[in-house]
């Protein structure tokens, strides 16, 4: 962390995490049509990737975890909430930590996104096959969908972080 960065108050940290968690919840509610299969994917991962790249690993971990868990709780899938809390929280943390090494490099952002995709798909696979009691077969069948959704999140999240940072420069100082 550079020394010229303004010190963020605890209230500012709570506010930034809460707003980004609400953004993640709302983005998770938004379903976009996926033409080839006529299915839908949600945009929760877009918010997580954006948050990790723009606001850093800690904000991404807390807001990503809480935002997706609340989306599950409010949307009628409460059994998934603890898993979303952990898996999406880890996804945000990992992307944020990788991006922290070289913030402005798109290659590093893509690498962080790739690791995030693996964490998300692997985390859900592990949780579904064990904690949720779905078994190996159904949990394996969910992996491609999770990878597509997470990859779409990273692909949209990287340019989104760039666009928001350019349009609203103060956000660059809010990294935590």
């Amino acid at each position: 962390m550079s020394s010229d960065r303004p010190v963020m108050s605890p209230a500012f940290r709570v506010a930034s995490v809460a707003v980004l968690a609400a953004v993640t919840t709302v983005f998770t509610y938004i379903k976009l049509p996926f033409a080839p299969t006529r299915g839908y994917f949600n945009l929760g991962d877009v918010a997580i990737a954006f948050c990790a790249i723009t606001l850093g690993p800690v904000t991404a971990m807390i807001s990503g975890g809480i935002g997706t868990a609340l989306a599950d709780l409010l949307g009628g899938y409460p059994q998934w909430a603890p898993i979303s809390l952990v898996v999406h929280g880890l996804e945000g943390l990992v992307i944020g930590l990788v991006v922290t090494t070289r913030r402005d490099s798109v290659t590093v952002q893509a690498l962080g996104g790739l690791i995030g995709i693996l964490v998300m798909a692997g985390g859900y696979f592990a949780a579904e096959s064990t904690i949720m009691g779905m078994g190996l077969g159904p949990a394996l069948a969910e992996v491609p969908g999770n990878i597509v959704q997470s990859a779409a999140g990273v692909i949209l999240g990287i340019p989104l972080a760039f666009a928001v940072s350019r349009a609203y420069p103060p956000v660059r100082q809010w990294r935590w």
Partner: protein
Amino acid sequence: MTVDFFRPGHSFLHRFDPRAKLLLLMPLFVCFFLPGPLWLPASYAGALALVIAGWLGPRELAVPLRAIAPILLLICLLTPPFHLRGRPLVRLFSLTLLTSEGLEETILLFMRFTGITLASFVVFRTLDLNDFVLSLRWFGLPFSLCLVLIVTLRYIPSLGATWRNVRDAHRLRSGPSQPKARGWMPLFTSILIEAIKGIPSLAMALESRGFGRKTPRTSYAVLPAANRFVAYLVIALAVSAVLIVPSFLLRR
């Protein structure tokens, strides 16, 4: 944007202490993973279905079952190929499609996933989110994290309204058609900027309300009295015993 999974009511499940209800969730999950005869998880899932239908109404039972129907179908289709030991039950030429072990495992996973879903449904359908956050605070979650949860819950509807306003503004500029992929980026950028611009004023509002000071905090919302919690905790422990003990007595 109005979103709340909680359905208000006056049933016994609604009156159940939120802390005891959350504690009960643990044995409700664990009982589906304990060894025992196959009819045991089936009877637990059946009992949960009866509880939901009896106290919340038969229509409420359809809500979680409809939500998990695709996963249950996946379990039925994809579990047998991973368990091919045992007596063959269904064969196509030389290919074994279903064995006795595969069928048993499929039923077990079906009941386990249905049971976990129904258990979390019955708890969170009857648990007000404010009580949920107060219970988490009572269990020791730091105040700042509880505040994050509360502020997030308050902020979701206003952010949903912002989403609609920005989307409508973009539609007015680009015509009535749904935004295509290239139209998403400006839409998302506008919404995110609108959201994060509110962070400094929200932080100031929190500070002006005393967040970050060392003085003791007061709260408008309080959980039910401790003696009521103890009474419901005894009920929760009794239910836990009913759920856990049979699997040890009837171990295969």
